[in-house]
């Protein structure tokens, strides 16, 4: 059987080929747009404050920006339908008093990964939210993160014995040890809070406070953000 007989070129096939080509081109362009968007992709450029700023000579090696592929993490997760999660509530719904906080010592410019501070609440558990636009009052944590936001939490009440080693022991293969400047940190590719992309969580402590970053960024990106904070590169 000749090739010409097996695949006769007809006007209809040409039309379908054109449709198919347009579909593929549109898909590729869409993927590229997502990969370079504010949420970033696994292969997104890591160039941020940490990568663009010269690292002081005296800085620790754990202040250097990592490159994609430097962190290997578990692919396992629990799907949303297998969790008994509390109902989602708007981030701003808490009755705790809203206060104007001074800039955090690690975020003196009130800007993190290029995003301005949109909301801060003090108290025993301090929270700061960074986003490229003001918060919608109905915005839940899941939506906030999916839209590219970064949540930074500082807790003044650390459980006795809470260390990176113990958290790693608890998390098992889901936890990854990362150094955040002089501090030991723990990275997790979190279980999904519902529909949408999964976020990363990064925990570390300086012995006085426990800190946590949450963001839909790659493992390397969120680690570099934390390093840029702790190492004075923000």
């Amino acid at each position: 059987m000749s090739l010409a007989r097996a695949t006769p070129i007809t006007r209809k096939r040409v039309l379908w080929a054109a449709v198919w080509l347009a579909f593929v081109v549109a898909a590729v362009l869409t993927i590229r747009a997502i990969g370079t968007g504010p949420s970033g992709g696994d292969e997104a450029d890591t160039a941020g404050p940490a990568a663009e700023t010269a690292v002081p000579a005296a800085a620790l090696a754990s202040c250097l920006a990592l490159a994609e592929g430097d962190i290997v993490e578990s692919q396992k997760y629990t799907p949303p339908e297998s969790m008994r999660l509390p109902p989602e509530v708007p981030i701003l719904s808490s009755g705790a008093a809203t206060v104007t906080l001074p800039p955090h010592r690690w975020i003196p410019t009130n800007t993190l990964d290029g995003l301005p501070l949109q909301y801060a609440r003090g108290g025993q558990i301090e929270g700061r939210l960074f986003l490229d636009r003001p918060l919608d009052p109905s915005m839940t944590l899941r939506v906030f993160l999916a839209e590219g936001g970064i949540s930074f939490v500082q807790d003044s009440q650390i459980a006795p014995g809470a260390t990176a080693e113990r958290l790693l022991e608890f998390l098992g293969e889901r936890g990854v040890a990362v150094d955040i400047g002089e501090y030991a940190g723990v990275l997790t590719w979190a279980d999904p809070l519902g529909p949408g992309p999964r976020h990363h969580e990064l925990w570390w402590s300086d012995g006085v406070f426990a800190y946590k970053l949450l963001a839909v960024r790659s493992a390397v990106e969120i680690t570099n953000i934390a390093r840029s904070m702790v190492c004075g590169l923000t």
Partner: protein
Amino acid sequence: MNDEPSGPSQVVVLDGVPPHSRGRMMAGPSGTRQPRLMVVRAIALCAVATLLSASVTFGEHATGARAEDYFDGVQGNMAIRTDPVTVPGVGFVHAAWLEHSTFDDDFVSIGTANSLGAGGPQGTCPDSYDPYWSIYVDWFLGGTYGCLTTNSNVYGVGANPSFEIYWTSCAGYSRFVMSMAYVPRACLLPWNPYWTAGDRIAVGLETTPWWLITEDYNIDAKWTNLRKNYSNLSGWYVFGNCEGYEVQNPNYQVQYVSNTACNTYLPPLD
């Protein structure tokens, strides 16, 4: 009925794929597939994605809450008032939560559950399709979810067990201790969560999964003797009005009864 702890018997861990990789796989060309089929599949996928993104959560809730301070405990009684139909794939949950903050996703919880199980790598609550409710604890800590059925099939309709979540001593350490019927069911966990108090406490009912939410389940949970413990004060204080911080999906009801009582239900009730 069995009052013995039951171990995990179900694993629901999925081998995940990075979201962006999934996108590439869906959009990538396949030299052996017909373009018309691919276009149809792409449209179908878009429709499914739209449907998923429109749903707010995978469970439906009627929850009363307090969120005006920092708490390290909540206690009370949770009454199981009705026996909802046990439909395969549907879960019924009555639970009390202590959530770390609205800025993150950590929580610890204790409750009673029937039918559909839950869980993942951090612990699993198996399915239990029978008229009896089991005691379970679950948590979201460090970005991971876990669930543990501590006592299988111990309560029927009419039960009104006490419950308590409290940051206190257990086995020589300060931990969140989860009790029901005055019996500690879990000290969370062999290792502590790294925080000691949360800014939201809540009680309520939940049905899962989301795609069967239009069914009438005749669910009724009554909460009484509700108290809270502030992280910077000793003693227990009245819970307060459970409305105001409530969350309720359409058709569900959260009803303030008193500063120590709250009703959560899905009418009509039998």
